[in-house]
């Protein structure tokens, strides 16, 4: 293969001396990639043998050569089946998403492909099925955490039929997929209103942006319907209702949103208790500032270090005419430490908060 020069710094109209200043990097050749791939295979073998920390230890800062070699390693369709290959791909995606390289779907896609090619069909091996279901949840959770909603939608589309089979085969096994599907629809139709400024990577655009929307046509109503369907599962009920309420709130349907919140049970997950209280505060803020202050105060009780509910309390009390109480609340808000924990970003990142736990479960299943 003829090697080509790659201009690392891209600028229009570079000539002469300017061009000479530009750093050039040659892509790795086949022999280099093959050598590196063999090294990576040994790392994968150690991972499969039980060294679960080897990815973080050995592969945290991948260079161009390592990425090229990893692609060949994981995308090798002739490689023998082993569930550890898929989970290894997941760990690569997890580790590399925090590194200097931008996050991409490559590793997640390779792992999904490995699972699709496993010799035993869904229903033939409970452990492998459990691994696959968890794998998809981790992949989707990672994408939610990065705010990569087009990629999330693409992944759900590609994995959809296998997820349908897994759910049909194991109807009693609790999983997050119904919630993830509802979230997908919500983010297809309504991302601008739901993502919020806290949401990292909202501007992330993947090559799957041009894919057509799912049918039925995504809409706030359809997303709400899916969340309410998901709420039939006791394990998903609180979150599904809170997220449905959030959509209704953002679209100005206060009565419906409050009715959904009234159906939630608390205390539950503190992230969701907090979100519910903040959403309720926002709903009541329009015309019932006293009750809004109570709702924000409830959020502050769940997360006493968070400043946003404290600001909500102060402003709502001001509008309720309780000026002295408001001023005291404002002073309290300004004196909160800067590193106080605010659960709202975790609410927006949805299933990302479970990724670590799910990866731990996958590691256990590999034993």
């Amino acid at each position, binding site marked *: 293969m003829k090697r080509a020069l790659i201009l690392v710094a891209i600028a229009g109209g570079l000539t002469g001396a300017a061009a000479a200043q530009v750093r050039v990097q040659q892509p790795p050749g086949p022999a280099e990639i093959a050598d590196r791939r063999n090294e990576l295979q040994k790392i994968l073998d150690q991972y499969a043998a039980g060294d679960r920390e080897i990815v973080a230890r050995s592969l945290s800062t991948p260079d161009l050569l390592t990425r090229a070699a990893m692609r060949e390693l994981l995308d090798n369709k002739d490689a023998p089946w082993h569930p550890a290959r898929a989970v290894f791909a997941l760990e690569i995606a997890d580790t590399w998403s925090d590194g200097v390289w931008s996050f991409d779907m490559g590793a997640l896609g390779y792992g999904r492909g490995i699972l699709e090619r496993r010799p035993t069909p869904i229903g033939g091996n409970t452990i492998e099925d459990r691994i696959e279901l968890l794998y998809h949840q981790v992949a989707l959770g990672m994408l939610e955490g990065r705010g990569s909603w087009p990629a999330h939608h693409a992944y759900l589309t590609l994995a959809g039929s296998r997820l349908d089979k897994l759910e049909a085969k194991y109807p009693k096994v609790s999983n997050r997929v119904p919630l993830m599907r509802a979230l997908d629809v919500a983010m297809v139709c309504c991302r601008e209103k739901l993502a*919020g*400024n806290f949401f990292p990577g909202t501007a992330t655009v993947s090559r799957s942006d041009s894919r057509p929307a799912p049918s039925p046509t995504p809409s706030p109503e359809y997303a709400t319907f899916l969340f309410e369907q998901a709420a039939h599962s006791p394990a998903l009920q609180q979150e599904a209702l809170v997220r449905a309420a959030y959509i209704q709130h953002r679209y100005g349907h206060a009565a419906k949103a409050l009715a959904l919140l009234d159906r939630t049970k608390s205390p539950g997950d503190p992230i969701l208790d907090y979100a519910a209280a903040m959403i309720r505060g926002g709903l009541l803020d329009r015309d019932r500032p006293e009750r809004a202050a109570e709702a924000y105060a409830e959020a502050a009780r769940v997360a006493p270090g968070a*400043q946003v509910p404290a*600001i909500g309390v102060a*402003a709502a009390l001001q509008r309720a005419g309780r*000026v002295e109480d408001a001023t005291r609340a404002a002073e309290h*808000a*300004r004196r909160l430490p800067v590193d106080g924990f605010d659960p709202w970003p975790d609410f927006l990142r949805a299933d990302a908060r479970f990724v670590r736990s799910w990866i731990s479960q996958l590691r256990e299943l590999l034993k």
Partner: protein
Amino acid sequence: MKRRLVAVGLTLVAGTVVHAQQGVFRARTDVVAIDVSVRDATKPVAGLTIGDFHLTDAGVTQALLNVGSDPMPLDVTLTIDVSNSMTADKQATIERAIRQVSATLKPDDRCSVVSFETHVLEESPLHHPPLAVRLTRRPGNTSLIDTLLLSMVSAPVVGRRQFNLILTDGIDTSSFFDTDRVKETMKYASGQTSVILVRGGRKTIGENPAIGLLNDVAGTTGGQVVALEQAEGLSAAFLAALDEFRMSYLLTFTPTGVSREGWHPVVVTVPGHRYTVRARQGYWFAR
């Protein structure tokens, strides 16, 4: 008769209590105080008297009680954006500007410094000068709208005028609350808010909804938005904004012929002159 401060500014006089046969009888008169800045083409206009002003409350002309000829001590709050755009040079410039503001304050004045990025932090509580602040640089997102909302929460203070000066580049990336919340809350706020907006070379700030909100906040409270291209002119801008507030008039009146609740739009003019009159756009009648 006790005069109760209804909104924005200060009470005039602690009143007397009239004793009746049945016990203590208290009557109450509500007073509204409005800060008003008057400029001709180039500078603030001084020396105006009560007869020069015309004020309407909800369209009804009001009899003015006073135009604040006696200087009142100030409570100044400086609110500073310390997010990602804050470089070490800019921090030094801002701290210098704060020291210069401190140097112009009178012994009876008070000043506080608040910084913000995603978090709003009281760097220095309200106290008499001198002011010495070392800002805490905290790279991160910017919750400008949340900060504005918090700055709107204040109570009128007897015998003092309140002035809030906000330094920002107008970018909001992480607020939880929306602009409507701020617009509603600012009707209840005390004091005047002005903004020093450092553009930093950006040309399309008009597309940023936070800029519109800054204009609304300043306009509603009777303040102004001063746009700078770079931070170098900061000290002069701080001092000019403070001077203009100090030279503004404090008009007081007892609302007459209007309802005793809700939002009251106020219009102030100086008839017969081509002056620019900047005043709070109204007040919320506190029960």
